[in-house]
């Protein structure tokens, strides 16, 4: 991955929601949105609540579909347009190229914290011992007490679950990383850890698009602030 390599190329994206079961009400959220992000660059989206930051990020992850436009993400030598790619192409992309970290952990019953964190790296075929070492390191850095590692995170506090989720999101060195308020409601110490993780990701060349409410985090990681309305 070389610096200044184009990693994310969004052009002319439109997105409206139509609520068929509520009288067919329709409202546009993204209007001709475009954005380019280079390797090693961190772009922070801002704008008022409800302006479409989260929708945009979800569209970048193909979690939301778009009505028109292109979202091209670099996958090795190729640029893949995820608005038209086949589902299994997107799954492959998510597995090794595209990471997404939100503040919510989708709990899988019965699976231990350590396994939850290791899983994405294991899925890439990486040796279990290496996955475990990396998972433990991340959990340690994020101050998740060791006594919790063998337990399923379903019963953890909100903050603990959030940190487990961050560890899971950072275990693979994704070339493209999407961060949807990962630091919301974290204490200062743990916010600092997340900032470090983001900086490390940038240093290895990841292209990052994020939403952060905390000013200090934004200041610490953003190369560019982009107003969602201006995209």
């Amino acid at each position, binding site marked *: 991955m070389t610096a200044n390599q184009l990693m994310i190329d969004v052009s002319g994206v439109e997105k409206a929601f139509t609520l068929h*079961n509520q009288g067919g009400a329709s409202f546009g959220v993204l209007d001709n949105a475009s954005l380019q992000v280079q390797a090693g660059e961190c772009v922070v989206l801002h704008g008022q609540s409800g302006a479409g930051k989260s929708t945009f990020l979800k569209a970048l992850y193909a*979690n*939301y*579909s778009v009505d028109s436009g292109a979202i091209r993400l670099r996958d090795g030598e190729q640029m893949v347009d995820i608005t038209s790619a086949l589902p*299994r192409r997107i799954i492959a992309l998510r597995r090794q*190229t595209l990471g997404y970290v939100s503040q919510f952990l989708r709990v899988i019953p019965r699976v231990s914290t350590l396994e939850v964190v290791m899983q994405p790296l294991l899925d890439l075929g990486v040796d279990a011992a290496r996955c475990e070492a990396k998972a433990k390191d991340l959990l340690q850095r994020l101050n998740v007490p060791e006594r919790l590692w063998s337990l399923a995170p379903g019963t953890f506090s909100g903050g603990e679950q959030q940190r487990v989720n961050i560890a899971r999101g950072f275990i693979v060195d994704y070339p493209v990383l999407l961060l949807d308020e990962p630091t919301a409601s974290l204490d200062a110490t743990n916010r600092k850890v997340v900032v470090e993780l983001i900086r490390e990701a940038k240093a290895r060349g990841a292209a990052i698009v994020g939403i952060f409410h905390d000013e200090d985090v934004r200041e610490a990681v953003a190369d560019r602030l982009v107003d969602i309305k201006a995209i």
Partner: protein
Amino acid sequence: MNNAVELLTSTSEWQDIAPLLSVRELNKFYAPGKGCGDINFDLYPGEVLGIVGESGSGKSTLLSCLSARLTPDSGQVLYNSEQFGEMDLYAGEESQRRVLMRSEWGIVHQHARDGLRMNVSAGANIGERLMAVGERHYGDIRAKAEEWLTAVEIDTGRIDDRPSQFSGGMQQRLQIARNLVTHPKLIFMDEPTGGLDVSVQAKLLDLLRNLVSRLGLSVIIVTHDLAVARLLAHRLIVMRRGAVVETGLTDQVLDDPQHPYTQLLVSSILQN
């Protein structure tokens, strides 16, 4: 890691993989509006496809057609078989379809008694498929039965008990073991967690999820439970009144549904 999964993750080669199962213009109606029609899709190795929709939407009919148990009125189901090569299921011999069912395929029924022999032991239930494909060494058969009981978290001490002495969740897990013992490539599941207690469901789902990813299985799972679909399926087909109304990546369909019916389905579930 399984070959299929590796191929799927490899960016350079992923495009070259042939579909495992292809459905073309499939129709099967018992009566107008009862059945399924105009079905087209491909299933690729290692993919888990969920078919969701309410009761009567035609999803179980579709599953029966796909798994060679119900001859469609028209259309094709093409399957890429290890033993028979590329085959058009219903154009071929029934004997071949039956060989597939006990070797390359697995079928997990909603009601365990449809998928198990209730009057013979758990070990015999698992061993039957091995014997059906020619295994004739008792010791080996028993060892494999024990291995698969362990894999589905049933105490090997229960190997000589009959399924009728098992709980609903155990019966379901036994059914899975019985199917997996011949290392099938493709598993069909019809509401595998239906009728189970919530706590039992969670255990079964977790087990399924692990087995599917560890063994690189391709799965077609019919469910009306969107949580089950989200946990297991890579991709969804939403059916209503016998027709496909929406398809796509599981989380995209569930988080950003486009069709009015899908929106209704998604908004009808309770948020946790």
